[in-house]
């Protein structure tokens, strides 16, 4: 008889990196992703790129979501992408949001960040993006 295996739920690790206390956005997004059926691991404030990647590996997350409002996005996003390369885990998708100017978004996407969402983005838009990116799992 065939074996009935469930689909792998998409696990998303979300974090605030650097010295940035704006956690309202990341919490709102985390809740929206939970309500859309994703398993969200929230690791809290003041994370380093090394901590984020290490936690994502332990949690077997397919996605890392960073939230940055401090202006340090041009160093922190590439640092996480770089650390993923060092740990041989480039299959993990990096996306995020926060205060990020249009020009920087273009530059960061060239550096391996999959997508970025700025203030005022409807939560459904973020969910829709994930659904499209991972049609196999999640909600």
């Amino acid at each position, binding site marked *: 008889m065939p074996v009935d295996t469930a689909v792998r739920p998409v696990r998303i690790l979300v974090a605030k990196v650097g010295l940035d206390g704006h956690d309202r956005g990341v919490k709102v997004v985390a809740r929206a992703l939970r309500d859309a059926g*994703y398993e969200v691991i929230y690791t*809290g404030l003041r994370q380093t790129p090394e901590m984020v990647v290490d936690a994502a590996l332990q949690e077997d997350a397919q996605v890392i979501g960073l939230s940055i409002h401090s202006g340090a996005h041009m160093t922190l996003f590439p640092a996480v992408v770089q650390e993923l390369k060092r740990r041989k885990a480039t299959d993990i998708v990096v996306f995020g949001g926060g205060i990020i100017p249009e020009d920087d978004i273009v530059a960061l996407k060239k550096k391996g960040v999959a997508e970025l969402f700025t203030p005022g983005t409807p939560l459904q838009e973020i969910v829709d993006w994930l659904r499209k990116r991972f049609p196999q799992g999640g909600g």
Partner: protein
Amino acid sequence: MDGESELAARFRAGDIRALARAISLVERRDPSVRALETPPKGGEGSAAVVGFTGAPGTGKSTLVDALVTLLRKQGKSVSVIATDPNSPFTGGAILGDRIRMQRHALDPKVFIRSMGARGHLGGLSLATREAIRLLGAFGFDQVILETVGVGQSELEVAAVADTTVVVMTPNLGDGVQMIKAGILEIADIFVVNKADLDGYQRVAMELRAMLSLNAPGATGAAASKPWKPPIITTVAARQEGIDELWAAIESHRRYLETSGRAQELAAKRLKDETAEVVADLARQQARLALGEDGALTEQLLKDGSPYRAAEEILNRIGSDGRKRGRG
């Protein structure tokens, strides 16, 4: 090399990512990693398991964090499985216990894994048991479980942990009297955490009074030497009382070994788990049969009761198994 054995090789070589992936497979009850649960011949491979349960916000994660700190000072490697409930509506979850354990980030001897407590085929306890075996086979000395004390989860923790710690606080709204049925039976150790807040002595006192009313219901080998759950007061946020807590955990482990209770528990668990695995497999096959077989469903609807169809499904599983046994 196929995907499966490549994962196995990386697991045996100590690759954290392979361990993490194996746990994900176990969570969705994928049988392909079962071979990894037994350690290589001659190797160590079973970790001691302590489980923490209690109402939301009582300080379980903070206590686990403090205990990990103590165990790391002793040179032990530690893994933590922290479960939070999934939404019953969407299956999604926010798993936030790691936030309190960031002190141990980047320590290669500490592995922390968050799990959604529901929505896994076969229930939390099956997946957790398998994950614990994986962690033991990977080489961890100690496994710590954290579960929110809602629903059935504390009973499930007690079914997998060697020592179950029930955490309470002074500001528990409804007081000790309202403690959920079954808790007294599963607690090997009580912790009254947040002993920096007013009223902790009262909680400890009420607890002591209640325990003296409830004679321990030990059976079997341990009946003549029953275990009396100690009450430990802690301030987890300040690492206070953690040495005492660890001493109590060790003392309970010695009790399990000297009383013969450890062997009893091991046998009982294997039997329970076997029954659960059988039920799990049968449930899967039943769903498949009822989904695929139009005639069976038609018969079922005509009967209006499940028994004839159930027997038919069990017969099919039986003959399938015998065929496989011969082939």
